[in-house]
């Protein structure tokens, strides 16, 4: 994500060059001081704590008496697939990918609607979408079960209206992978919409008008103008969902049943129930590393995309 202001291009005279250079120096100073607080915060309250997790994963730190000293054994067991957790990671990766893609697809039209069409109502409507999230999460999930259960609202309605036989309700909506994904989608849609909304709303609509003047159809204008310009927002949205979803543990706990168990659930259990913080730390760090690499790759991709576009 490079800002496109290349200041040196515009200077012809040497006097101007000097001024630009001093301006650039000032900017560098400002940049550094701006970054000091957030970076300091992240180092103190994020990097140091995470280093502690590293210490746990190799046994430098221990909490419970049953653990077994400094070694890379736990890492070896995990990486060689001796236990089941690597398979679980692959499965969670797949689920997170599906959820992220589906949610972004579902949220895009909403963002488009709010940003381009809803006009002056857009902020009220936006907040309307976010308001339900002030209800406690656990309560909402409980309500979902009442809605989707075997004898829940949806099935009662279908049976009452004769759309389905009494003995044949829609099953599998209460527990398992599918409900985990539905509920995660439910949780994420409003949040995911925001980066895309933010990207679209700041678009110069005169570009669209220009496209229309040049005889482009609406559809073509969308693909050639709106969509590329909203792409950074789309990518941000994707991360918004994808990243936390791989590590998700609350939703699988509530609606996952045994089939919806995820990588995050295992981490949660190893810390919260198994008191095996060492394996838990290894799993967490693996998650961090995997997503980190993915994020770097993605940023590369996006940058190339933007270069190509200009």
């Amino acid at each position, binding site marked *: 994500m490079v800002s496109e202001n290349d200041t040196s291009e515009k200077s012809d005279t040497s006097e101007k060059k000097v001024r630009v250079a001093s301006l650039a120096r000032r900017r560098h100073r400002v940049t550094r001081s701006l970054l000091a607080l957030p970076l300091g915060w992240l180092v103190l309250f994020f990097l140091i704590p995470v280093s502690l997790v590293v210490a746990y994963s190799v046994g*430098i730190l221990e909490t419970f008496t049953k653990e077994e000293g400094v070694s890379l054994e736990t890492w070896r067991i995990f990486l060689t697939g001796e236990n089941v957790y690597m398979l679980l990671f692959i499965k969670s990766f797949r689920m997170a990918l599906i959820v992220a893609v589906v949610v972004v697809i579902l949220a895009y039209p909403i963002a488009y609607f709010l940003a381009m069409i809803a006009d002056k109502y857009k902020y009220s409507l936006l907040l309307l979408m976010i308001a339900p999230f002030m209800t406690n999460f656990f309560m909402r999930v409980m309500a979902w079960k009442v809605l989707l259960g075997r004898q829940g609202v949806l099935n009662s309605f279908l049976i009452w209206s004769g759309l389905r036989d009494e003995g044949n309700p829609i099953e599998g909506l209460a527990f398992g992978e599918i409900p985990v994904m539905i509920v995660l989608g439910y949780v994420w849609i409003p949040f995911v919409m925001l980066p895309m909304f933010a990207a679209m709303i700041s678009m110069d609509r005169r570009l669209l008008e220009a496209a229309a003047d040049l005889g482009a159809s609406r559809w073509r204008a969308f693909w050639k103008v709106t969509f590329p310009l909203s792409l950074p927002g789309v990518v941000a949205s994707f991360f918004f969902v994808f990243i936390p979803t791989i590590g998700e543990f609350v939703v699988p*706990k*509530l609606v996952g*049943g045994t089939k919806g168990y995820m990588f995050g659930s295992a981490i949660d259990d190893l810390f*919260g129930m198994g008191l095996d913080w060492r394996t838990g730390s290894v799993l967490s760090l693996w998650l961090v590393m995997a997503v980190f690499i993915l994020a770097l790759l993605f940023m590369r991709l996006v940058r190339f995309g933007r270069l190509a576009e200009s």
Partner: protein
Amino acid sequence: MSDGRDPISRRDFVKLAGKGALVAGAMPAALAACGEDAPPETVVVTETVIEERIVTETETVIEEKIVEVEVPGEAPTTTMGMREAGLAAENGADLLIYAPPGREVPTQWPGYLGRFPHPQFAATAGSFASLGELQLGAIEPDIWNPCFAVFDTAVSEGLVQPWDTSLIPNFADLNPNLTAATSRDGNQYAIPLLYGLAIPIYRADLYTPKENSYSILFDEDLAGKVTWTDSAEWFVVAGKLPENNVANPLDPTEEELDRLVEFMKRKIRIVPAALYSDLATNQTDLATGNIVASYVAPTQWIELTKQGVDIAFITPDEGFIGFSCGYFLMADADQYYHAHEWVNAAVSVEAALTISNKFNFGNSNLKATAVDNPLLVDVMGLGDPAALDGVSLLDKMQNIDRLNDAWIEVKAAAGV
């Protein structure tokens, strides 16, 4: 690290953590600076940590001595004078009780408020989750109220200290089966408050059981419609089934545990669609028919019946599994005498009746039998000291860590 893997006290741990924080925080920076691998640094780390250990061990010894002088501990010769002096020396307003919500209502510890300052309460979400928090010092209560599946771990990790039962007059009225399960080596490590039987229940309108056994929870005809609790106690349930042939389900041998793990991996795939971690969600699932058979405390049966859900329960031929919950005195408690006064009030007859009438649990006080609910008296034998004789109390589970790890393994295998 060094030779023995002897238990470290929490204080030691925090010291260790402190050292670790410094070193571990410095490590990435050092690595980045020289662009090399970790080994040299790691050696340094180890040495520092050992030094730290030696220092802290001495400190701990000194502390323990002081504790012995100040606190009567196991000595039954506590005089009332010492009690008064002890109460006066403490600041009762600092008494912190780590308990499920609801325990802060004064009707659950009648007679304490008015004589002493109002104690403080913090809400715990689960017995095992709290274990880690307490071990790390995330919260430092005087009294902790978990269910006693954690008993073995809490005692062997040195988190808790014995109660002085001579300071708790109501202790004499408590169910001996429950107090025996929470004592070790003659020390009363916990004061039981409530108990329940883990009963198999089913929607009578949707299912007819083939036998009176916990085996309905493994019945393949109910595929996708059974819940199991999300806990290692499931090995106890499976261990109780005659087909699994486990001598003591509360403490299976390694070989027995391996067999149980295989059994569970097989069963968890075909039978349960859901594990539940909280009772409220499970109750919702039973009411909506998401779940047809489950494993619950009697309180769920009562609530669901009140709601008009057609629920029946089974008295298993292999005998009931039971659980109990109550109070631990934390090893670092600084409100020793107030803690005893409070616990005495919390297991009084009036308090016990609230537990049974308001929350539908069995209570530990044998004199508190005047309850509204016949089920508690008839099925759970409230007030009968012998009623829990044949019941497998989860308090007696041993080495639950390995059961927990095995349980996570079973779940992860099912999820893949």
